[in-house]
């Protein structure tokens, strides 16, 4: 098995699955019906993207396993998602800001992955990029609206920014798999995404009248399977049925 390729696919698949699961927690709890639907729609797109990636990862793994094995039967330390996506939903402002920090990566990531020399990854990227663009539009609109909104909405999203800022960079810092992917041409150059993304974030935050936090500390470890305590709880929810009733189908 090509371990780097496998891990590379899992990094993105896990990001999409875990963030999709987090957004799904809002189902029936959104601040207004339209935004409740928006969050679950985005969740659906992300879980769809993770499925395409897991299907491919299972083929690369070549152990006769399926997408379901990868989603439902791995333990927390096998998950490669960044710490950002497993952070709690908090209030609507925190969910929006987490989404924005992710979308501002996801969009240029897929855009560049379309040029992958791996046909399968290029096709998945082509499909997913259109969806990611739409998500980014939604989340950046909301960062603006909350930041440049009422005193309370401004305060809430500024607090969210302070809380999540140290989780922002991990996604553009290369892991071993990222380095291999860039070198062999099946993945993207994270440095190129980093600068594009930083510009986008700055632009939106500025327009939203939000102050970029001063701290420069960055959490990391997700890509290597070192997670915050939250991931275990997410997986307990997500994987319960398959753990309790192995092989059960709808």
């Amino acid at each position, binding site marked *: 098995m090509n371990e780097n390729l496998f891990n590379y696919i899992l990094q993105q698949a896990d990001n999409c699955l875990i963030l999709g699961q987090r957004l799904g927690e809002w189902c029936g709890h959104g601040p207004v019906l*339209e*935004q409740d*639907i*928006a969050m679950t*729609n*985005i969740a*659906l*797109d*992300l*879980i*769809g*993207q993770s*499925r*395409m990636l897991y299907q491919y990862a299972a083929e690369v793994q070549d152990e006769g396993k399926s997408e379901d094995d990868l989603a439902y039967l791995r333990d927390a330390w096998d998950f490669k998602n960044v710490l950002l996506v497993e952070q709690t939903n908090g209030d609507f402002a925190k969910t929006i800001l987490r989404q924005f920090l992710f979308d501002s990566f996801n969009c240029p990531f897929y855009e560049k992955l379309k040029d992958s020399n791996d*046909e399968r990854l*290029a*096709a*998945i990227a*082509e*499909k*997913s*990029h*259109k*969806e990611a663009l*739409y998500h980014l*539009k*939604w989340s950046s609109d909301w960062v603006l609206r909350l930041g440049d909104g009422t005193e309370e909405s401004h305060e809430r999203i500024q607090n969210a920014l302070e809380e999540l800022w140290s989780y922002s960079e991990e996604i553009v810092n290369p892991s071993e798999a990222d380095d291999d992917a860039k070198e062999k041409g099946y993945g993207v150059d994270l440095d190129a995404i980093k600068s594009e993304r930083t510009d986008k974030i700055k632009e939106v935050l500025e327009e939203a009248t939000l102050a970029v936090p001063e701290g420069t500390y960055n959490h990391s470890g997700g890509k290597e399977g070192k997670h915050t305590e939250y991931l275990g709880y997410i997986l307990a929810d997500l994987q319960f049925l398959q753990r309790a009733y192995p092989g059960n189908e709808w």
Partner: protein
Amino acid sequence: MVIDQDHISQLLEEVTDPEIPVISIRDLGILRDIKIENDQIEIVITPTYSGCPAMLEIEKNINNTLKKNGIENFKIATVLSPAWTTDWMSEEGKQKLKDYGIAPPNPTGESDIQCPNCGSYNTILVSQFGSTACKSLFKCEDCLEPFDYFKCH
């Protein structure tokens, strides 16, 4: 009976989107190709959105429709590239959507969406996301009816 592309294509006219049952998978652009080689048939489809829950249902319906008509030698292949776009929707499909009460994709943007109820262009976007991944929610400022708009994608 000759099993050719036209014949299969006609049979598949009855396979519709489970969420918008007036529009066939050909009208929607989900049905990409029908390949026939040495009696082996391949039906090529592509998903609208990557998380579209209708895809499984659509595959099942293709399967049932062909078997019901005595066709057994076929397989269904899903392709991702080129990625599905609303540009592939047929004119007939757009008309059917409209008749059903859904504003069809409008290539010139979202500022001039026509209300499928009264025909007015005095409409506003209520929500970027609607009842399914492929739609957003609009409201007509003249007849005041809310309506679904099938997004350009």
